[in-house]
């Protein structure tokens, strides 16, 4: 994972510029560009936000207004893995609170926090559209359903296992 201070890699800059040019107006690429930056760095730092804004011909304030508006753009550092645990109604009925409690205990963090080893960030998320397999959570890009406290805990453990 790159540091927050490194400038955007040239290839990423090019992709953002291309995307902006393909749109009716460059600002239409705001969310996509922020997502690309986040895919690369894990989150969007102030410096990267400003650099992205200039590629889109926007002011940092303008782009940050968009970045902070949406749920999926992270303006603070996150762990190597991000758990988005659904907190909407079907999952709640099916016991997401218990899943959350176990994850918190196991990871030693509260929702919104990152484990000290930088492995996992735990965040609540609105309905993931996996209600027939509630409780559900999204780990990075993978959807997990029919969770219970035990399966969630096992999953969390694999995330924290040292990468080979």
């Amino acid at each position, binding site marked *: 994972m790159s540091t927050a201070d490194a400038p955007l890699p040239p290839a990423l800059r090019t992709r953002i510029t291309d995307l902006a040019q393909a749109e009716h107006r460059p600002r239409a690429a705001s969310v996509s560009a922020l997502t690309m930056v986040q895919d690369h760095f894990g989150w969007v730092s102030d410096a990267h936000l400003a650099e992205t804004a200039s590629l889109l011909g926007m*002011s940092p*304030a303008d782009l*940050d207004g968009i970045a*902070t508006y949406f749920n999926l753009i992270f303006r603070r550092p996150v762990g190597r893995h991000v758990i988005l645990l659904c907190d909407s109604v079907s999952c709640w009925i099916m016991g997401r609170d218990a899943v959350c409690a176990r994850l918190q205990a196991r990871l030693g963090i509260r929702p919104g926090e990152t484990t000290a080893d930088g492995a996992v960030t735990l965040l609540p998320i609105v309905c993931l559209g996996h209600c027939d397999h509630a409780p559900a959570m999204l780990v990075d890009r993978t959807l997990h359903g029919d969770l219970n406290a035990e399966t969630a805990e096992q999953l969390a453990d694999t995330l924290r296992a040292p990468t080979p």
Partner: protein
Amino acid sequence: MATILIDGRACPARTDENLLQACLEAGADLPYFCWHPDLGSVGACRQCAIKQFSGPDDKTGRIVMACMTQVTDGAILSIDEPQAREFRAGVVEWLMTNHPHDCPVCPEGGECHLQDMTVMTGHDSRRYRFTKRTHRNQDLGPFINHEMNRCIGCYRCVRFYRDYAGGEDLAAFAAHNDLYFGRHEDGALESAFSGNLVEVCPTGVFTDKPFSAVYSRKWDMRGAPSVCAHCAVGCNTIVNARQGTVRRVINRYHEAVNRYFLCDRGRYGHGFTSAPTRLRAPILRQDGIPVPISMATALERFAAMAKDGPIVGIGSTRASLESNFALRCLTGPDRFSTGLTQLEHDLTMQVPALLRATPARNPSLHDMESADAVLVLGEDVCVTAPRLSLALRQTLRRAAFPAADAAKVPHWMDAAVRMLGADAPSPLMVLTPAATDLDPIAATIHRAAPDNLARLGFAIAHRVDNSAPDAPDLSETEIQLADALATALRTAHRPLIVAGLQYANAALIHAAANIATALHATGADAALSLVVPDCNSMGMALTGGIPLDAVRAMARAGHIGTLVVVENDLTRRLDAATLDELLAAVPHLVVIDHIATRLAERADLLLPAASFAESGGTLVNTEGRAQRFLPALTPTMPIQESWRWTQQLTQAATHADAPEWTNLDQIVATIAQEIPALSRIIDAAPDAEYRLDGRRIRSEPARISGRTAVRADISVHDRPLPQSPDTPLSPSMEGAYSPDMPGALMPFYHAPGWNSVQSLNRFQQEIGGPMRGGDAGTRLLDDGIPPETPEWHHDIPTPFTTAPDDLLLLPEPRLFGTEELSALSPPIAARVTPATLRLSTLPAGLQDGGMVSLTLAGEHLTLPVRHDPALPPGIALCPPHLAARAFTTPVRVQLHGDDTP
């Protein structure tokens, strides 16, 4: 006109407005937050909910937002209906869930729209029993305090700052009730109009920071109508004062000029009135040592000086008509100087003549907003006339109206209009040597030297009307550009040409006049606006006089006994050697000014003048509108108005025909009589005899406490002020006050239940229209009789050429720091950045930020360079006065690499 029924009362209403406007115009108390008369409706706050009924038989009705509903003839509304009342009370209750209720310590308290609306809806007890959200505030620079916890999320700040004024560094962040309005990071707000947030914000999120340091409640301050002295636009202001000092300046609505908004230079420039450099006593320089003397002694000394030969006067474009005229009476017209160097003098004198002779309209700012094609020719109006640039910016919004009309969206439906017009072509064409803040929204931008811009202008005029002279030897690019711009202007219905004196280039304003004349001849409703430099440049042009060069000649010839300089720091106009030469040839120098200028340091006799805040007078703005400012304070003797000093000097010098003016009106009357071009200035404002219902208009609100803790050891009472003979306003809370007061005499805005500036609605004939009591000021240049056939200017310059090591250095005025008086105001001074030399190509071996030496206006300078590749070749830019004190007009310079290690 339609008729609508508001709670059973038939009221007239315009069909192009919304129900909120109609209700307010009908005098109803209908609360609102997000709507603003010049920002339109967006339906965010939901505060103006009313019941609308589909017909006489509809007893249920439905709740609508008045600001989002168009007036229709026969519409039946109720403001009082219980459900509507309940909903409006609910909205305030919701807003209050997070509001800190810190009114006692909030600077907005007492003039807070949120307070007013809370009282209006009847919300008086708290039922929300949970914690409030809290925010961290930002340092937004020297102008604005930030207290986000007070925010009620009306979005007015960003709508003004971004959508209306084009600012980029203020935004809305986050969502739901985490909503935050601020900057991306701490730092001074970049917009030239940030101070308007103070008035736009309905509560105390954005408040006036310099005012906070000398804070007083609105009701404890006196107000006086004034006119901004920091550029030639002539924005109307209200000066608030208490206990002998100016506390703040706020906007005074003028339908045609500044409407609801001021620039930051105007709002925060008043600090010079209480700067340490203020002169407070007459000073006599004896053997080089300044000695304070009495008024009587000063006059005696002057009488003695007057015996040593002819008196010559130098007036000032920053002084009132009255101050200049009184000086002219002392010296006689032939020995009265405009205080301008030859080039500036000639150009300034030309402007009113040009405007009168050109058949195109000479537009007000509000008029400019509806132009459908704007050519800005060689003037960075964003710094020379900031409020004017804000008016030009509004042409973009107008450009969206056709799309809005096609979609049947009323023009006040702001978000929809902006969305529909997002792709509308910009009517702005900006032709300047360097980038301006209007560039990002202009359809065409072109960089060239002033001469080449003038040539383009002539070429455009020729392409609009081929009887106008064409510029020879244009490049292919220039021909294409001229063709395109001419086409854009010719196809417009209301084309506008804007030029000015920034580059002291006569050909530029002549070319502008040619274009406007040519467009007028095509039958278009064409307009020409010429921007002059100072708040009374136009007044000086109409008064007339001799240039400084003529004064120098007189001095050289030994024809000056005493030189009297009024409110003019000649060190800003003449380089040191020239000034030394002049002063050496003058036995006596008398300076009358309110601040200790560099010139004042050299005066044999220095007399302390009243600033605009302590005096009355008349200024003529760049459109030729004479406007009166009235004293907010009484000057403390021996400080007095320059014209009173000059009158006394005249009497002391025992002139046979010394004038006997005892008040402002008398000198105004004399001016009107003596100078035909100024004959109408009497109409600029009602005179001191004006009475409303038999009484003077009070300058203090009825709620004034008249008590202060500041000098409680002496007395708890504010010191009462004597009645000034120059104003129809009473100095106290005694007097009349009504919605029908003339706009020129508006001391403060207040209406029952409306303590904030929003009460302005109650003083207008219609929302956004003229004042009920008439707008302030009077236009002087509308009496021109243009020639029947166009008379063209032919002074087409030759193409600008560049030679190596020979640069044309152009003045690059700054928003902050160039204008003399505002630069003395601490918050403005805090925003002044050091002078740089901007170059299109850097000399060999020099890097961006490196130092370079040059000789400019008699000074040897070493300046950091800033590389600006967008500049035309052969052009360099340097701010006037900031680097070389007397640098004001373009000059050829040669650069030397810095020889210091």
